[in-house]
């Protein structure tokens, strides 16, 4: 059933800007670093070992990718819920023989999948960027590229769940979007100020901590909790 719901969801986002956003996000992040490296080529690249350059490149990309991810997940969640809010299609969908849980799960999974695509795109885009800098194909540090793309994504799971929930439950998208923007700003400044247990710090810990898997595991676990709370509220509430 969830598969049927998802196939309907993917149909419904046709001709929306969602796909453009999903591609434009990682593309924009890598392009901005392209400008950065282009302007400071002498300082960042010339005369350096390929390993050093890759490290800087991956670090800089993920530094930009993190706020983009936190902002992007709020926008993607809002847009995919907005499809239903716009012409109040909730009453249409929920009067069909589908379970409310799965309808909610469908919206969450759609949002999570789209962001997964965005995050995954960072890998080939960063690799291609490195190659254009003249770094040899053999020197590509695939495992760093992969962890820097997917660990922050997994550590962001609580926010994906939160934004999916808020966007679905509120007809006025100003509130979830504001929460998303504030969340992004908080996470930007979370660095030294917050203790490690604050979820806003997890996406960052997922690339910088000695043992990033704690942040990743905590993100996934807390994400499931937020999802479950949202699901319960959605199922209990009357449809507008």
């Amino acid at each position, binding site marked *: 059933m969830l598969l049927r719901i998802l196939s309907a969801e993917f149909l419904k986002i046709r001709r929306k800007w969602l796909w453009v956003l999903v591609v434009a996000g990682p593309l924009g992040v890598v392009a901005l670093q392209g400008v950065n490296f282009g302007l400071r080529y002498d300082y960042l690249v010339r005369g350096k070992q390929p390993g050093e350059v890759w490290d800087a490149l991956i670090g800089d990309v993920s530094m930009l990718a993190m706020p983009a991810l936190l902002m992007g997940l709020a926008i993607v969640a809002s847009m995919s819920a907005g499809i239903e809010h716009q*012409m109040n299609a909730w009453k249409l969908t929920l009067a*069909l023989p589908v379970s409310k849980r799965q309808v909610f799960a469908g919206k969450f999974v759609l949002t999570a999948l789209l962001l997964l695509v965005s995050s995954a795109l960072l890998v080939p885009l960063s690799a291609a960027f490195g190659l254009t800098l003249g770094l040899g194909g053999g020197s590509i540090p695939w495992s760093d590229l992969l962890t820097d793309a997917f660990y922050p994504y997994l550590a962001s799971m609580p926010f994906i769940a939160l934004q999916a929930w808020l966007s679905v439950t509120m007809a006025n998208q100003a509130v979830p979007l504001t929460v998303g923007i504030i969340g992004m700003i908080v996470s930007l400044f979370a660095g030294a100020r917050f203790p490690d247990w604050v979820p806003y710090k997890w996406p960052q810990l997922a690339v910088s901590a000695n043992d990033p898997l704690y942040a990743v595991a905590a993100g996934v676990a807390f994400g499931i909790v937020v999802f479950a709370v949202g699901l319960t509220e959605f199922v209990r509430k009357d449809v507008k």
Partner: protein
Amino acid sequence: MASDTILETKDLTKRLGGKKVVDGVNLAIGRGDIYGFLGPNGAGKTTTIRMLLGLAKPTDGSIRVFGKDIRKERIAILRKVGSLVEYPSYYGHLTAVENLEAIRRLLGVPKARIDEVLSIVRLTKDANRAVKGFSLGMKQRLGIATALLGDPELLVLDEPTNGLDPAGIQEIRELIKSLPGKSGVTILISSHLLSEVEQMATRVGIISKGKLIYEDSIQRLRDQAKGRIRLSVSEPEAAWRTLLSHGHSVGWENGVLTASQTDNRTVAGIVAQLVKADYEVYRVEEESASLESIFLEMTGTEGSL
């Protein structure tokens, strides 16, 4: 529950904002009925329908559809129900076909159903246009097509002609009238206008301020709508006194005589008496009390509509 009752509510109640918006409603709809669910604006029609579809939970009371409890077997029930609630919901950026396809994927019915329902509501020509460019009537028809997609046994239509012009209303009415013949569905259709469902309903329920105040066949309602005879005569007041003094029960209002007994003998007797007493009889007309006026009387909203 009688074997042919397919929808039944018991003391259905919904409290919203501290007010009983639906108050102890007992509905009974039989298989094959076209049930007109009538009530003025704000009477609680939509709220009732939302509960019937499992969109809202009753504060009190129970709902059984196809003999099943909506709280326990919502999905099994909804598999055989098609609905259109309040105003049509649609995805404006998608075409009519894509809208139906999105729903079809959830229902899991064959793809061929899409063309079938589009032709039933005569949207085949516009099937590949974005729905946001549709007229209200077309959106309404698409809503009905969506409701028909799963080949339902029970069709629930909440004010399907709301906001349409007379031609649009007529079109939807013809469409709905043609449905039971084609597929044998039972239809629950709500409206705030009796005239709108009068020609197609077999049963009516009238709801006012959350309470079901009438439920019976449309024929019973018609029987209550007996007419009266209006007579315009010269010197109406004197004529009225003359008739009364001869034992005819007539009324007198705005210079016109009225008789509520309309059988031939009574009318003939009154006219003969008037002629005998040398009054000039200008007109003898039958005035049939419209169902509308009965409806207004029952719902106590006379003059406010």
